[in-house]
């Protein structure tokens, strides 16, 4: 037992496995996450890959913790390289320092310059050689054994995970893997790394990706129809729903393009079936005409956009929060809609469920802005509660007299005639129309419907879920979506230094209620608005729609680099030092 291993255990550690695509880093990362979860820890695994389908570079970035983990740390404690193939592509994303430990296959030669320059301690370990000594084994499993040992994972949990994962391939392979694991644990004995986790505090947890979480939220909200066209990084939502919708009596249709996806959903919803589509930026660009149609025909609809780097094809495999503007404004004409944003993987369940409920109650489209980080990261989380939000539409009763599909009411919501119901036959239309649905080009008719479409959204009581508001203080941080996780950790660090900080994370992006937001920001004289968008879309949107404290600063960075807690904390500390006029 050497000196370094007697360092005190840590509450959280950051691990990364890198290699060429196909080397198995994602498999290794997932085994480690699964095993750590079984052992009772929380954890998060983020995937970073190049655009290649096979080959190219890949990194599985894990953070394990005794308590819930929402974002990646600023730096990496332990990096394992199965090869140095195109590792230089990660020089910006993976931050090493003198306290980091790097383990690389001894067959791979010297690490790249960004690794040696970091001052990280480098160990050359016989990863591929150890693998070869166990016929059928690959170096990624050796890496699992070494990392598992250094982190201090219960070996039984690693074995169980392996057994579940490879059971279909037969006992012989499982035995080989277990022998390999044993050998790799011995190899870890001579390595020094201060990443041994404190004992876990087991409690109920779910293990899932944000994309799966969106699917679960959709089912809970009552979605029973989905039409979608494959697009990275949203496809896993579609794939998950394709399996699950039939189990609850619904169905999924793979459409010929995104124009068809959203219009099929509109057709199903017109028929009274709660419908959702999932896409990413380029797909949303194609869908905006139909979003306006859903607004004009007051058809409930949920569109989930798992944002990726843009514009155009951008960076399909990496995250950015730059679709806020198209979600809020995209389509011609004045077309108020709901825009919601989950701010964590568990919240993907909650916010999607809420979006379904709101779209159905308000008879309008709801855009849910997730992103690649939330969607494709897998995490062990506290199970999200099933909320009392179930699709319920105001329907016309049978044989209603003088049915007015778009008749005004005190809350702006009208009764919807559902095909099959006698007496409420009408033709929905994207043309401006009278309360009866009859097309009209008269100014007063146009005005009445525009008023109604806006009013029903603005008057609705959204309760307390429109934002997460945490803490008090004259220093404030306002953010949205996935960036909330890093912002929360940044705020915790600044608080630990003795400063009082309030965090506000908007879940309901549109409609924006300036009065409610002003109340949430009361007492704040310095405000930092944080987002992952080069054009500061969130900051500009807020400036256009409400009063912010006079001393407000914008921290807006483009993707695909995730905003890390250290970067946000530094900006908060600078803001705190600034003189308020």
């Amino acid at each position, binding site marked *: 037992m050497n000196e370094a291993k007697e360092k005190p255990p840590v509450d959280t550690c950051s691990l990364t496995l890198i290699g060429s695509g196909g080397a198995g880093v994602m498999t290794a990362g997932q085994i480690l996450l699964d095993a750590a*979860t*079984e052992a*009772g820890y929380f954890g998060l695994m983020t995937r970073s890959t190049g655009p290649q389908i096979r080959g190219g570079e890949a990194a599985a970035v894990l953070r394990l913790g005794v308590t819930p983990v929402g974002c990646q740390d600023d730096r990496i404690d332990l990096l394992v390289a199965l090869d140095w193939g195109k590792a230089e592509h990660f020089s910006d994303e993976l931050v090493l320092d003198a306290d980091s430990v790097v383990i690389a296959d001894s067959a791979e030669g010297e690490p790249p310059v960004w690794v040696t320059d970091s001052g990280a301690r480098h160990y050359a370990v016989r990863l591929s050689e150890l693998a070869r000594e166990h016929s059928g084994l690959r170096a990624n499993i050796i890496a699992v054994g070494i990392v598992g040992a250094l982190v201090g994972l219960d070996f039984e949990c690693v074995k169980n995970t392996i057994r579940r994962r490879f059971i279909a391939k037969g006992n012989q392979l499982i035995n080989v893997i277990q022998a390999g694991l044993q050998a790799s644990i011995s190899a870890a004995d001579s390595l020094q790394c201060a990443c041994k986790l404190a004992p876990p505090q*087991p409690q*109920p*947890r*779910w*293990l*899932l990706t944000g994309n799966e979480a969106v699917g*679960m939220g959709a*089912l*809970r909200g009552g979605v029973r*129809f989905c039409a979608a066209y494959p697009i990275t990084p949203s496809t896993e939502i579609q794939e998950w729903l*394709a*399996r*699950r919708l*039939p*189990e*609850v009596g619904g*169905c*999924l*249709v793979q*459409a*010929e*393009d995104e*124009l*068809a996806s959203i*219009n*099929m*959903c*509109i*057709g*199903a*919803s*017109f*028929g009274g*079936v709660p*419908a959702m589509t999932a896409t990413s930026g380029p797909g949303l660009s194609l869908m905006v*005409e*139909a979003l306006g*149609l859903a607004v004009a025909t007051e058809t409930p609809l949920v569109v989930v956009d798992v944002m990726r780097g843009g514009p155009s094809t951008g960076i399909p495999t990496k995250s950015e929060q730059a679709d806020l503007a198209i979600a809020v404004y995209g389509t011609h004409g004045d077309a108020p809609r709901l825009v919601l944003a989950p701010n964590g993987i568990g919240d993907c369940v909650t916010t999607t469920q809420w979006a379904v409920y709101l779209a159905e109650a308000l008879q309008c489209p709801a855009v849910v802005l997730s992103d690649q980080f939330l969607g494709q990261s897998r995490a062990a989380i506290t*199970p999200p509660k*099933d909320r009392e939000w179930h699709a319920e539409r105001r329907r016309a009763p049978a044989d209603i007299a003088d049915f007015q599909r778009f008749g005004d009411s005190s809350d702006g919501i009208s009764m919807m*005639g559902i*095909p*099959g*119901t*006698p*007496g*409420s*036959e*009408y*033709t*929905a*239309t*994207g*043309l401006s129309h009278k309360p009866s*649905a*009859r*097309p009209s080009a008269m100014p007063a008719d146009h005005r009445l419907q525009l008023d109604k479409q806006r009013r029903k959204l603005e008057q609705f009581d959204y309760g307390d879920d429109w934002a997460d508001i945490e803490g008090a203080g004259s220093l404030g941080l306002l953010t949205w979506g996935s960036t909330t996780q890093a912002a929360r950790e940044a705020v915790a660090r600044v608080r630990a230094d003795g400063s009082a900080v309030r965090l506000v994370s908007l879940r309901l992006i549109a409609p924006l209620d300036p009065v409610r937001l002003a109340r949430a920001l009361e007492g704040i004289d310095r405000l930092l608005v944080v987002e992952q968008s080069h054009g500061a879309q969130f900051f500009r949107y807020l400036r256009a729609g409400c009063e912010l404290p006079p001393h407000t600063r914008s921290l807006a960075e483009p993707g695909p680099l995730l905003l890390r807690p250290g970067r946000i904390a530094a900006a908060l500390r600078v803001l705190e030092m600034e003189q308020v006029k």
Partner: protein
Amino acid sequence: MSREHQVKPRALAHKDYKSSYKPVWCAGCGDYGVLNALTKSLSALEIPTEQVALISGIGCSSRLPAYTRAYGFHGVHGRALPVAAGLAISRPELTVIAVGGDGDGFSIGGNHFIHACRRNANFSYLVMDNAVYGMTKGQASPTTESNWTGSKLAPQGTHQPPFQPLEMALAAGAPFIARAFSNASNELARIIREAIEFPGFAFVQILSPCVTFRPEQLNWKKQVHEAFSPTADKREAYLKLLDDDGIGTGILYRAPRPCFQPDTAAARSLAAIATDFEVSA
């Protein structure tokens, strides 16, 4: 898919399927004939008005749903077919009929036409083809003859051969393909009836003259002729199309195949599905 509708005690005349709205169509427009034949068919089939959904896009003929007393959805340009598919797949007990024009269906909505043919969801598609964009006042459409110089947008003609809807439908896998003429009321009503009753995607190209921008189409009255009798032999249908002059009518192809049927699964509760995510500690 069930076509057994709950027959109501009140028998509806074809006029009962019409709304009180006065069409925006020009006097003499072929679309009046289609509206009449459609309401006659619905009446003959005794389908209750609330069980019918007419889905359209944009264009003169896409105004048709509002002139009926039934459920209707007048969507955006070119997207009638996906709206109809979403409704027909999620509400299989309804009678869903997509309607529209040649520009809506074959140009801006062309991709959906191909995939509707191969998907074979259970609904009918009536295309009122006048080989012109009427609503925007007379531009060439995909079915316009290449030497037609009546448009300011293509003053020297289209420089491309016209789109062949029946060949396209046959190649793309539509199991019911027909052509009819808007003025031949009885034949049109019969073909529409057969299309509605057909289990699957039933496509009917309806020659529907535009008296305003293509007045020469009034001659169709003298020119159209019976050309097709239904066959389930694809080879025979292709051969007939090789001799097609574009104004021969009848059911070209009728070869039922299984309708689009989404995946099914044993029922599970949401609570059971949630257990998939639970970690066994």
